């Protein structure tokens, strides 16, 4: 999970969702659905969060939510992994664009 390794879609979108700031599980689920159209269930969200936490990519932060939901935030290694993945996707997108595969683009 360092440098150039592709991230799985679930990991990428969860990290992406947390890029703007700490969120609780349900908010992540919503954000992922918005950004990717992926319908993610709570088991996948919390399971992935737990694994990412073990890897040091995200961390639980003290909750300020009234219902004391668990809130997770992006950690620097997670941000670096996300950036690497974003660069990879950008390069990929550039390649796709160069091959004029997307209709309507010049």
């Amino acid at each position: 999970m360092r440098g150039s390794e592709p991230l799985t879609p679930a990991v990428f979108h969860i990290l992406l969702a947390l890029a703007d700031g700490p969120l609780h599980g349900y908010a992540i689920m919503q954000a992922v659905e918005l950004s990717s159209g992926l319908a993610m269930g709570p088991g996948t969200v919390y399971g992935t969060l737990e694994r990412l936490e073990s890897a040091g990519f995200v961390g639980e932060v003290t909750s300020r939510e009234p219902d004391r939901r668990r809130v997770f935030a992006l950690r620097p290694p997670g941000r670096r992994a996300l950036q690497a993945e974003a660069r990879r996707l950008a390069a990929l997108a550039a390649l796709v664009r160069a091959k004029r595969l997307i209709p309507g683009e010049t």
Partner: protein
Amino acid sequence: VAPHRFSRIVYRWLLRGYPRRFRQRFQRDMEADFVVMAERMGLLRAWRRILADAMRAVPLATIHAHEHTMRTAMRPVLLPGESTMQAVLFDLRYAVRALVKSSLFTLVSLPTLALGIGAASAIFTVVNAVLLRPLPWREPDRAVMIWSTWTAFDKTWISEGELNAYRSRNRTLAHVAAWNDGQINVTGGGEPERVAYAQVTANLFTTLGVQPMLGRGIARAEDVPNGPDVVVIGHGLWVRRYAADPSVLGRTIRLNGRPFQIVGVMPHDFVLPTDFANPEPTQLWTPLQVDPASTDYGSHGWYAAARLRPGVSVEGAAADVHRMAAALTREGIHPVQMRFDTVVLTLRDEVVGPVRGSLLLLFGAVGFLLLIACANVANLMLVRAESRQRETAVRAALGAGAGRIVRQMLAESLVLSAAASAFGLVFAWTAVRVVAWWNPASIPRLAEMSLDWRVLCFTAGVAVLTSALFGLAPALRAFRVDLTDWLRDGQRSSGGVGSQRFRSVMVVAEMALAVVLLAGAGLMLRSLWSLQKIHPGFNPSQVLTLRLSLPEASYQRSEQVVLFYQQLLERVRAVSGVKQAGAVRSLPLASPIGDWGLQVDGYVPPPGTGAKGDWEIATDGYFEAMGEHLVRGRTITAADRSDTQLVALINETMAKQYWSGRDPVGGRFKIGSAERPWVTVVGIVGDVRHNGLTGVTKEKFYVPHTQWHVSVGSPIRGMTLVVKASGDPLSLVGSVRREIRRLDAALPIADVRTMDDIVAANLSTPAFTGALLASFAAIAVVLSAIGIYGVLSFLVSRRTREIGIRIAMGAGRTQVVRLVLGRALTLILSGLAIGVTGALLGARVIRHLLHDVTPADPASFLTAAALLVAVAVVASLVPTLRATRVDPQAALRVE
């Protein structure tokens, strides 16, 4: 009523499918999410998504939970708030689990290490008991033994005159003490017994720095000619004979029938330096009663020890003693040709010096063995580390630092060597029992061997050191794996050239060390063999010996002594199973023999020298019983009586020395001064190794026991019975003892031994060293065979694809064999070359331990090399054959 109550119950039930830790942490959030989902998207859609999600998420969460332990191991060096102790404990627990999991690795490496550590601990136990434990004297490096040496003797006693000279002329010695030793009959107040005793100077106890635990030592006033008969007794005798009764002081003990007053008891660990290796040390010490005016420089019969004055070095004292010895020659007391000098050794060198070389050699050898074991385990660790590269890479990727990973691997090696040490200690304990049971006679203090705190510390130290030795290199190597390689494709990295080289170096080192051990063992065994080949000059098989001494009080007259032995021998010869019996004053290889000045008829000694010969006294039957070889003439017979012609036998050396060109049989000599009667030579016997199996044979003469009191003077009361048996000599002990009892029920019997045992005792140090070295070498060969087998197996499995391609390209079996075996031979021959060079250099160190074998003995070296090459090639054959059986199609499909 909360909405969707039933759904929430079902949902909660569903959550039980998640691992407990996960559920405990997220259940609240997940229930809340479910409620929100149900509200926003409707119960049916919410359930569909939940179920689809659970089918993917539950297995993942479960796997994750199972990997929990491992994940925690991927932590950075210290978690926030975690103490070092907790982290270390964690590492150790993890290490134990990892070792239990890889059982094959543990099964091979644990015994290897246990053997190495156990052998090292066992030898250290011996070294500890013999060399390191404190000696029973105060400052044993500040007191010296003084011996005489001249052309005939390398190291022998001093004379009364020399003692007086050293006492009055020295500039460096605070006390000079002397003693002699022998055996004495103790009677009165218990069973008669024969006890080793010594006559000592009053200052001996002060010189050794040991005071009596009860009563006093010998007073100066008692240590004068015709002084009172007092005795200091040993702790063992005090406990055995007097039940440790403190009121023993002032009581009388009868020694050889004469009453002595007990004035003191020595502490339990007190021994004379000359008794250090003696299983039956002296237990009675009476005054030597030196005459300070004596100028007897001829009779060398006393041991001497001296304590250095403060500030004097041992070298300084030795120089002082040499100076005094040189003065004796300058003043004409000793003839120049005698080349009289002294040997000065500290008490420590005196008692442990003779075995120190052998023990240090064994210690070094066992160190080599341990290194070989370490090299083997290091190789195994490396193979294992490589098979765990993925684990390591994942852990590194997940943030475990280099320090963390190296520490984790070191924890594993530490746990491994700790376990090996535990087994090793069991092994050492067993080995120490075996050594104690064997009990090589010439190595002192083996009886005191124990696994004490020093041994435990040593073993612990060795465990830590070895774990660093075999753990560090693989740990550092393992961390150098290419992480990205691993993570990208999850396949085996194609690298490993470096680790292959590391393993090769380990195998070459093992081979080299094994060659050194093999060559060393070969040299020692060759030396032992040539020692065993030495013909002692007699036939030791089926010969029983035992010692008797007639007390002067009841056998005052010479005739009584002579008659006793004649009668006893007649009775013993009549015992069934006895082929022949005789008696002798000084038993070859058992008690040292000294010489007597001679006047040989017709022999003119070179100016300043005199004829001399070791004096032996024997009865008729002795030569036949001992199997000594008669060269010419006749042996002593029953017809040689005190009233017949005085006769003697001489050995070949004496015949050559004093009768060169003349016929000795019929020749004459006088023993001692010119007033003594002529003794006629009636026979020549072969040379006998008397004072040791090696060394020069000196002139020696044999006088009949019946005639000694006529030819020289006093009768010889102490004799050793020599009985040749037709069967097992020890089966005769009972009947011989019975015959002695019938003649004199009060006569104690001592030193019941067979001649075979006596000869074996003379070989015990080389036999001990040789046997241990040989077993170390055997283990070393096995270990290095395992090592080369492992490296080649790994090589073949690594290069399966390459071999497959070669076979597919038409390479035959020969080429494949050449590929693998060629590699093996490179390793073997490199190890051999280094090892032989090392062994040639090292062998010089053990030169003084070798008899009749040069340190560069070609036979030993060639055998060692051939043996190692043979074993290593056999070990290489299995992987080689596997390589030839590689199926090219399968090999190419593998990757």
